[in-house]
């Protein structure tokens, strides 16, 4: 079963998002509220997918994404944000190998489309 790590600094969002991940048929292996614990948890749990908020209290989610995708046997990174695509501009370059999903588009269907089967 695909194993997912959720990284976001709002607890209520994490709680509801993990219920949604479970409803989509995946397993939530862990949650993190900031960049440092996100990297620790990713190294410890080796998830298949990381749902990663772009804005984190200690560091930018983009920097965390860069580190995650360049690690050996990297997880799939899905960057999430309460902002929409247009807030970042059309020509915005996401870290290589990452996809972007605005939080208001986070549905079971969209999640299933985005997550690559292992």
């Amino acid at each position, binding site marked *: 079963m695909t194993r997912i790590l959720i990284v976001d600094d*709002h607890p*209520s*969002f994490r709680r*509801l*998002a993990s*219920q*949604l991940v479970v409803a989509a048929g995946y397993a939530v292996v862990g949650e993190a509220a900031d960049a440092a614990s996100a990297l620790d948890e990713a190294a410890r749990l080796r998830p298949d997918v990381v749902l990663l908020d772009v804005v984190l209290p200690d560091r930018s989610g983009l920097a965390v994404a860069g580190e995650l995708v360049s690690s050996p046997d990297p997880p799939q990174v899905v960057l999430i944000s*309460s*902002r929409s695509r247009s807030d970042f501009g059309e020509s915005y370059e996401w870290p290589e190998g990452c996809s972007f999903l605005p939080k208001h588009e986070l549905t*079971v269907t969209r999640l299933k489309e985005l997550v690559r089967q292992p």
Partner: protein
Amino acid sequence: MRLAAAVGAGVVALWAVDVVRQNELGVGDAGLAFYAVAGVVSVGVALAIARHPGRERLALVILGWLFVSALDDLAVDWPTSRSATTVWMLAHGLQPAVYGLMVLSYPSGRLRDRGDRALVGAATALGLVWMGVPLLFFRPNGCAVCAPRVSSFLYTGTTFDYGFLGKVFAACFIVIGAAFVWLLVRRLAAAPAGARVTLLPLGFAVLFATAEFVAQRIVTLGGWQAPFGVLDWLDRGNALVLPLAILVGLAEIRRRRGPLGDLVVELRTAQPGEVRLALARTLGDPTLELALWLPDRNSFVREDGTPIDPQASGERRTVTTIGPAAEPLAAIVHDERLLGQRTLLEAAGSAAHLALENARLQAELRAQLVELNASRSRILAAADAERRRLERDLHDGAQQRLLALGLALQLLRERADDPALLEQAHAELQQALRELRDLARGIHPTILTEQGLGAAVRSLADRAPIAVSVHADEDRYASSIEAAVYFLVAEALANVVKHAQTGAAIVSLERRDGRLVVDVSDDGRGGATAAADGGLQGLVDRIAAVGGTLTITSGHGAGTTLHAEIPCGS
């Protein structure tokens, strides 16, 4: 000074032309060389005079005379040129009048009274008539060495023997010369002893020139010939003697009145912003700084309105205060070595009193302008920061709640009977509404618009986590004033909660003599200041924007009081 330099250059050029031309013609002699050197020296003297404040006019008159004198050789330079002849005749005719003007206008460069003006006018008229005759009737008589050897441009084509007229004019000039000497003697006699000394060198030079001039006319009248060209030499000597005499006289004036006199003269014509310069020059300290005291602001500023702290003036600098110590007019920051001249320093301060009063008014206006510009950009920056804060608050607050609510609703689509999920959705919605309400109140509270300042401040007090007692009535004010005061009180109470370490504060709003007087005070630890980047500065700007003033009293351990007064009509 620039004009004087230009005229001086013209005079030197004319003299150079004289020397070159007369050498070409083979008529130059030792007298000419002396004349040219004397001319250059005199121009130098005149330019030196022009550099002194208030002396430029006199220098220009001297240069004008040197210029007319230099023109007086044109006929010799080009004896067969009709234009040179015409100019020479005019210059020759005007020379006595210009000379009189120069002497009588000493030392100010202006003629003093009607007697002076009448004499110069008469000399001008007589000179023009005198040379008008040859201008109109001179016809060369075939003399091969005379100058000029052509008629002027104004020649009428006829001539007559006007030799006798020469004697008439000579007699007239003797009369004018006598009147001139009489004017000078009268002036010398009327002058107080101190001033007389400054007139003496000029008197000597004039005596010299007048004697020479009268001798020329007497020789003309008698039809004689002076031996050895003595009169020519004397004539040429004039070009040197007079400017030198004036220089000596001016030096004596300067010596007598000293640097302070110069200061007074200079301050009379000083432009706004030049008082520091005048003082620096008088006291001989180019690094001198002038700090003007603005009692309304309780601070010192420079003439341009920028703030200055006289006490923080650096090594080997010291401060001399002008005016009473309790209510100073200004402070001079200067080299401490000037202290040896304390009398001069203090006298300079007194001499500059009126100019300093003016400078202070000017500086006050400038300071207001500087302050206005600064507060305008601070208000812009504050508005910008406020917008960024609103965006962040919306993004971190209500938006996150609504996103969570969206997720919950999605899940409810599958599990409509999950009471925990329903409860969470409801909680997120309530929280979102509360945060939006708080945010809206932060932008502009409804209670302020609906019920006025008193009620709005009381509701602020009710929500505060400390005990706040409010003394306010239900008066209404202009909405800009109500908003400014509301945010003043809100920010002040927030500061009390954050910094003051006390459990109580007092707010009072009162209409007094056409002003709204606001006090917010606590009994906490104090020590608050309106540093430029602090929140208090923002409050100062906000109150200033509605025409009011905000003062902050906050001693260490003595609590903090914000006191604002805003004009609000009756």
